């Protein structure tokens, strides 16, 4: 059986992103396209997402004009391509609190958000440090934290402490502390709902950006190469990569980095009229393809 349909939905992109930011040590090696995507999980009576992107009103102009981010489209338009609306989303898993993953929570009025408590508490701790430590705050939008207060008061913020199984049937959360951020997490979908699944998928947030992070530069002689940016340690990133790869039985194509442009080479996809790519990783039993 296939329990869930899984789509990677592009909502913006940086056409020329330096490889050194994506793969540790690749300095002066040119650029590649960096898509911004979120994941949709549909099945078993649930509609869920992994991350929600950023709020264009708050960040779009600066990101477009100064940082080269192009083609942002709102969730209503992006999700509309597969026939759903933001209001349909009941569950959101936030892999980490950077604004481009958590910055659009207000567009999902009916969703309950899952986030590691450590991600919040360590940011708060960071804020108590002297100004010379401000590098540790990068990527965080205080407005997102204010919105999270509202979520919590509405009972729509679940602070997770470590791993948690079956948040939805077959969907597990795994802590990846002190890696890309203090309290990152990745999401596993056991798509046959089996405890020892033979059809697992990992949605890794920014624990990996590209296939090279998972298998190195030579697929015939694989190695783990961490991403170019770790708030925690490269060691922790590598050990979590091993954990993620093991959880999908060694098939790295089932570890899905949302910023990986080359997912299109591995799975069916299509480009929308707005120029955004939809990649279809899996189709639940009885579900119609959204890319053919």
């Amino acid at each position: 059986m296939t329990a869930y349909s899984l789509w990677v939905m592009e909502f913006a992109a940086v056409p020329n992103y330096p490889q050194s930011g994506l793969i540790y040590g690749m300095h002066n090696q040119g650029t590649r396209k960096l898509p911004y995507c979120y994941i949709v999980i549909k099945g078993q009576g649930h509609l869920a997402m992994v991350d929600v992107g950023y709020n264009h009103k708050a960040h779009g102009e600066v990101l477009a004009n100064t940082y080269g981010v192009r083609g942002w489209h709102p969730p209503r338009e992006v999700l509309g391509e597969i026939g759903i609306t933001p209001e349909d989303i009941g569950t959101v898993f936030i892999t980490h609190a950077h604004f481009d993953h958590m910055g659009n929570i207000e567009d999902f009025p009916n969703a309950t958000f899952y986030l590691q408590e450590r991600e919040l508490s360590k940011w708060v701790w960071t804020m108590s440090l002297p100004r010379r430590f401000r590098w540790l705050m990068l990527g965080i939008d205080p407005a997102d934290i204010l919105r999270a207060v509202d979520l919590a008061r509405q009972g729509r913020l679940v602070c997770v402490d470590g791993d948690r199984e079956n948040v939805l049937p077959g969907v597990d959360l795994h802590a990846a502390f002190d890696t890309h951020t203090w309290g990152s997490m990745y999401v596993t979908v056991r798509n046959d709902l089996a405890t020892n699944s033979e059809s697992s998928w990992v949605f890794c947030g920014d624990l990996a950006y590209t296939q090279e992070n998972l298998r190195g530069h030579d697929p015939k002689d694989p190695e783990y190469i961490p991403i170019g940016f770790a708030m925690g340690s490269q060691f922790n990133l590598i050990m979590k990569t091993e954990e993620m790869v093991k959880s999908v039985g060694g098939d790295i194509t089932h570890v899905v980095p949302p910023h990986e442009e080359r997912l299109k080479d591995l799975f069916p996809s299509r480009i929308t009229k707005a120029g955004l790519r939809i990649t279809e990783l899996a189709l639940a039993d009885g579900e119609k393809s959204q890319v053919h």
Partner: protein
Amino acid sequence: MVDDATATYIVDNQRCFEDLKQVASQLAGLLVLAAAGSKEASPHHPALLRARELYREAMDEMHRGRPTERARKHHEHVAKAAAMIGAALRQTEGAFDLDRILIPLRAGYAELERAADALPGFEMVSYERACCGQRLGQSK
């Protein structure tokens, strides 16, 4: 483009703006922990002590600011933000009543956003070195 005097004002006043943003962030962070039921949220959290200290520094910096005509609106928004954030901060001295803190805090944060819009050189989020993008002109 801004004139030389305004450019000087921008450089001199970035610290005040950043400090107020930091105070707002510290308060927001504590509020979300409190609202989520975290045991870490308390009126004695180190972030709150640091916020009070930073707020005093920001007020000193703000009072030293001499805005040009071009910078006048920015300065007004910063002053309003400081008043609101100060009000939010005072509300933390007693019991942790979320509403009483959140309302002025939100208003103060909105004023900071307006201040950022009113003059170049003031960013609400530090995108620099963030993993989301690379400043144009540095990537080639």
